[in-house]
């Protein structure tokens, strides 16, 4: 591992709330239970008519209803697009769990937001009937436009929380929320903030963005067998499957959380972030960037690869990602020398794009808390070029205090975030 300068003193950062809206559950607990059951929520696209696309299936959020209790004004509700609504519910769940809003002594000048949010969901009918017809001088068009703005969700959530410390919205494609978690961690660790609401939200299940991924050849076209389409690290994989959803956390200074008697779910103890500086869509063939992100996170956490028991891989189910990520993992965590078990939960949730990193870190935190490694679903024959120790087809117990979650985005951003188990 490369040597890096010793780090300045940092505060401990703990997790005091997690919320999620995903294709397999509309709360984090439901999502975790679904993952342990190996539930696959893939089905024909219902959000629009995708019949003639090479990929007409996706992992979609089901039975969702926006939680408007108490906080959401009608004005703000109008600003929330589909992903924004997922983000709202997930944030509310995380905040309720954290009890941050129940405490009168919180200094909300020292509370901020840092979210990874997608590029919005262009609606084809709006585009064809409004934009191309030059009919956008209407209130509806204006609202539609701003509801798809990346900072809109962050700003609406800041009003729910009353957080005056400031709002940060990040977009680095599929690494967006992994990066948001990392920056939120730095914001608290540096002493700048006492607490940060962080996470991600996204939905790219719409005609334009699905077309965009199809044009790139990135999506699975296993139309006759969609439930087996997302199969990370399997020899027969041929693309990813879109998912949608949101996952939010409350990251908090350990002493701050302790002093107010908050329940501590886990600890964030390491963050690595790099740029591959290679190509917009392709990973560097030798894993450059991905390797360094994991090494940086380990160094940041002050642990060795041997300490890590579980790795939630980015594992998209594309041929290139899974091979290069496996190569990178095997270089940092050599088989035979390290015991880390790898899985990608995208086989059950699909690819949540900007929200993927947040959800997968939440799964890692739960895995540590429950001491259970999520199953490798849809893994029938491991690609021999993905030479890592993959999780079994069933949930397996393990003993470890550390888990690492990777995110890798178009544009070359790589993030690794490490969670530490907190024993009550």
């Amino acid at each position, binding site marked *: 591992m490369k040597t890096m300068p010793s780090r300045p003193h940092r505060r401990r950062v703990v997790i005091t709330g997690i919320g999620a809206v995903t294709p397999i559950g509309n709360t984090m607990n439901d999502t975790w239970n679904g993952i342990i059951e190996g539930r696959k929520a893939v089905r024909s696209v219902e959000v629009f008519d995708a019949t003639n696309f090479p990929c007409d299936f996706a992992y979609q959020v089901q039975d969702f209803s926006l939680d408007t209790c108490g906080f959401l004004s009608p004005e703000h509700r109008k600003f929330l697009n589909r992903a924004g609504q997922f983000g709202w519910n997930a944030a509310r769940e995380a905040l309720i769990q954290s009890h941050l809003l129940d405490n009168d002594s919180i200094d909300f*000048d020292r509370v901020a937001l840092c979210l990874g949010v997608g590029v919005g969901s262009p609606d084809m009918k709006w585009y064809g009937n409004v934009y191309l017809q030059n009919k*956008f001088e209407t209130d509806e068009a204006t609202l539609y436009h701003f509801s798809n703005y*990346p900072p809109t969700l962050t*700003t*609406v959530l800041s009003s729910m929380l009353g957080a005056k410390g400031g709002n940060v919205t990040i977009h680095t494609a599929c690494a967006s929320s992994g990066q948001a978690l990392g920056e939120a961690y730095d914001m608290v660790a540096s002493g700048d903030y006492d607490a940060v609401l962080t996470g991600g939200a996204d939905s790219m299940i719409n005609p334009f963005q699905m077309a965009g991924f199809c044009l790139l050849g990135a999506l699975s076209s296993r139309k006759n067998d969609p439930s087996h389409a997302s199969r990370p690290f399997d020899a027969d994989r041929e693309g990813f499957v879109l998912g949608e959803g949101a996952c939010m956390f409350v990251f908090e200074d350990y002493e701050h959380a302790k002093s107010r008697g908050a329940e501590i779910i886990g600890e964030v103890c390491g963050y690595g972030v790099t740029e591959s500086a290679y190509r917009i869509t392709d990973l560097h063939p030798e894993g450059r960037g991905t390797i360094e992100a994991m090494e940086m996170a380990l160094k940041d956490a002050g642990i060795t690869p041997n300490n890590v028991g579980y790795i939630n891989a980015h594992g998209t189910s594309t041929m290139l990602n899974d091979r290069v990520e496996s190569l990178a993992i095997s270089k940092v965590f050599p088989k035979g020398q390290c015991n880390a078990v790898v899985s990608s939960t995208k086989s059950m949730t699909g690819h949540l794009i900007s929200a993927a990193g947040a959800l997968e870190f939440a799964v890692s935190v739960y895995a540590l808390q429950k001491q259970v490694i999520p199953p490798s679903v849809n893994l029938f024959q491991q690609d021999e070029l993905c030479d890592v120790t993959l999780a079994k087809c069933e949930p397996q117990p393990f003993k470890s205090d550390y888990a690492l979650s990777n995110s890798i985005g178009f544009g070359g951003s790589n993030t690794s975030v490490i969670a530490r188990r907190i024993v009550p």
Partner: protein
Amino acid sequence: MTLNTNKPTDVVFTGIGMITSHGCGIEANLEALENPPMRTAAEDYYVRGFDPAPHLSDRKVVKVVSARDVLGLVAFENSVRNAGVKKEAINPDRTGLYIGAPPSACTDSLNYAEGIEASRNAYGDLQEDAFGLHYRSASPTTLLTGLPNNVLCYGSKTLDARGPNSNYTCLETSGHLSIIGAARAMRLGRLDCAIAGGYSAHTDPVHTASVRRRGLLKNPSTGSFAITPYRSVKEAEGTITAEGAAFVAMELREVAAARGAIPFATLLASGMSSDAKGPFATDRTTGSFPSLLRRVLNQGGVDASRVGVILLTGSGIAAVDTIELSAVRDLLSQEKIQPPLATTAPVWGNLMEAGGVGELGLLKYAFKTGRLPRSTLIGDSDTSAQFNRDRDVALILRASPWGEYTCLVVRMEGVLT
């Protein structure tokens, strides 16, 4: 909130790059502040007829990114050259880009126009299922063209910068957030060098119409067309969004010194705050902006009496200008000698994500010459263009109609003659 810094002299600025409708390079934009050209239409603030090829290391990149990304890449490379940062000399693992990027534009989907029209039935109604047959007429890289992190990707590749990085999509505050994020990463020991800044092109017709309908845009009129900030609520005319990009090179002082670079400013402190009232909602009563200003000065260990210049946003939007000006007055209420208040907005326009970054170039110029260009002086500030350079600290503010605020506290150095 503010950056918690125990070593306030650590992060320095060593270079700046910029492009606007006034030209490429900080000099062209300073010249515009000294001798403002007459502007009569919104389009005058767009970058048109510009050939980026001579400014880019990889000229082929213009074929795969949007026009706004090209602006970002030009200013990025401009800042790297200005700072004398060499690809061969940096530590790639400890060099990173921090960027404020605009959201995707509707024009990014123009590639699909042919497919959309082909998907109409005999009555002209759009058929989503038919689009699944016709989208292939679009370029295979359509999705990539609209990615907000293209400048991060191609800029990193150009400089071989592989260290920590980020890409902020927070509109007006993005440029400052990139500097704040990079500084935090440097102070946490993650980075030696960062190129930080933003690029903007909110000239998409849908965006323009949407902002106008919110009452934020200045309406076209005869004669001069420029932002006139700090008018009363009744007289305020709105903002003018401009295209452009601005980046700065930031380094740890010892890293800059090791390569012989002379910093022109030190970042003493920085921070952000929010009214937390939601989109397009400002609320002066929250006091979040005055609170931010006091806090960053405190963090930087700076007394308000040491502030020589304050560069404001001056958006031309009444609600924003009112909060910004009152926050500054609150800060300076006990000061006998008031520093000059200035803004580039009447000349550069509202550079959105790029805003508040080129201002570092203006400060370098002002502290070198001992005066501010008259075009930048805020009308009701009782000052002349001359100012006291012994007060070597300057503030750069950003205020947005989303009730979000940022502030940089910098100490000028190496430019005093």
